[in-house]
């Protein structure tokens, strides 16, 4: 059962967005999220819908996969829409009146607007994790945070990146180990699947303690191995892989920029 835990959601389809620089993707994602919030009119939002649909098409990842991510936040979407439904101005005409609550056409419009906005935000955010491997994400974060070195945080940036790399490296190893320990405890008669929640949590203790101990041992051995590989806290360290902007990056930037300008223009004109 533990094997089902996947780290990251990367799906390989060899699309242009997959090839793009992780730094570019991350910065543009932040920009797009801001733009979706900026789009105040229905026209602006429809344009955002068009942009996000284009992103989905270009990634070559089926829409169904994207929609799966929506399931988890469905309650939030519903709640937001329902609350917004009651906040329309009464001038727009009353649609329904139940007891003291009135739903106006304006309210309905707001509800649909809000729901669509959240859906777009989630889909566009998923497109980053679907098209970028955890390693590339780590690389991108390290590079994006690198300006921090000018305020004396150089080793902090490097340490953070290394921590993320090691965490990613050890997730499958620890999952495997946890499975082994669970089987060993089951063989000794441990009951992990029945009983109340509190009983089940208690049953996890004999799994977590050996896992913790072995992790500490691993960490110690890893530290020694890193020392043997001349690690000295990242001072004077270089990188084999250099991130380089390619034509794909410039194309993606251009398209996003056009979309951004359009959203701002619509806001000004309307």
């Amino acid at each position, binding site marked *: 059962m533990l094997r089902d835990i996947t780290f990251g959601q990367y799906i390989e389809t060899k699309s242009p967005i997959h090839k793009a620089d992780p730094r570019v993707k991350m910065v543009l994602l932040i920009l797009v999220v801001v733009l979706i919030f900026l789009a105040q009119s229905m026209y602006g939002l429809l344009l955002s819908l068009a942009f996000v649909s284009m992103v989905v098409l270009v990634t070559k990842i089926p829409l169904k996969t994207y929609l799966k991510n929506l399931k988890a936040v469905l309650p939030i979407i519903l709640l937001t829409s329902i609350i917004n439904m009651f906040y329309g101005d009464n001038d727009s005409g009353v649609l329904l009146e139940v007891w003291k609550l009135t739903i106006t056409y304006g309210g309905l419009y707001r509800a649909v607007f809000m729901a669509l906005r959240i859906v777009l935000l989630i889909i566009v955010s998923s497109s980053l994790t679907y098209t970028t491997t*955890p*390693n590339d994400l780590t690389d991108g974060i390290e590079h994006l945070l690198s300006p921090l070195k000018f305020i004396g945080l150089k080793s902090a940036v490097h340490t953070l990146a*290394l921590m993320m*790399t*090691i965490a*990613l*490296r050890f997730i*499958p*190893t620890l999952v*495997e180990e946890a499975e082994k320990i669970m089987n060993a405890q089951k063989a000794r008669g441990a009951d992990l699947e029945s009983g109340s929640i509190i009983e089940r949590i208690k049953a996890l203790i004999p799994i977590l303690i050996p896992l913790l101990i072995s992790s500490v041992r*691993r960490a110690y*051995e*890893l530290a*020694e*191995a*890193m*020392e*043997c*590989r*001349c*690690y*000295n806290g*990242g001072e*004077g*360290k*270089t*990188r*084999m*892989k*250099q991130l380089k902007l390619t034509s794909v990056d410039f194309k993606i930037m251009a398209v996003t920029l056009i979309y951004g300008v359009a959203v701002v223009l619509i806001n000004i004109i309307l």
Partner: protein
Amino acid sequence: MDNIIEVRNAVYEYVDEDVVKRAVDNVSFSIERGSFTVILGHNGSGKSTLAKLLNGLLKPTDGDIFVDGINTKDEETEIEVKRKVGMVFQNPDNQLVASVVEEDVAFGPENLGLHPSVIRKRVDDALNSVGMYEYRESTPHRLSGGQKQRIAIAGIIAMEPSCLILDEPTAMLDPKGRKEIVSTLRKLNKEKGITVVLITHYMEEAEKADRVMVMNDGVIIDDNTPKEIFKKVEVLKSVGLSVPQTTELLYALKQNGFNISTDVLSVEETANAIAYCLEEE
């Protein structure tokens, strides 16, 4: 004679529950450049401690160890010693840092601050020399134990050390993985001229070494060619080592009155020796 490592009266003591224990007790020897040395010893014989002394991970309590003329006690040249003497440990899982093979191999050279193009070349060369080039983009946890250990070796080779120390690199591997590692080491020794010090308790792995040292209770009790060492079946058994099956068989035959030579090692040589002995009878 050109020695890469010189050990002079090295002692290593540690405190365990208020009792001072000696893991390495006044040991002296040197390792010739380009040689293939095997250090044999049972668990707790001090062989792992000795390994860590050789690349400066531990400092001798007394005595000195020189790597290429540099004293390992010298704080300023600590990195230099580690660059010259690479070390591979028992568990491959706990040595790999990155989740992409080539990025892991690049870790050492990156720490040395080399130029990206130089690192690229070294990584490719190192992966080629352990026969793992085609796996450069896969992730270590999908590989077998032997393959992971070869990646760990590549990670050290990429720093271009003159000497490679391996502390029981095959202890957690299956027989197939064990063979992979031993033949990789032999290849690195022959083709790249890298000095190899292999620490193990599997005597089979000592067969083709230039020299075998036997360690027990922190002391080197024997230091000779594999053939000479394997003749001393009684001594080896007394320090808790199991001799190869071929040696065991020949030894038993000889004890039961057969006039047979016991200084052969491989299965083929053993078969020939037995055939020869039978013809003579």
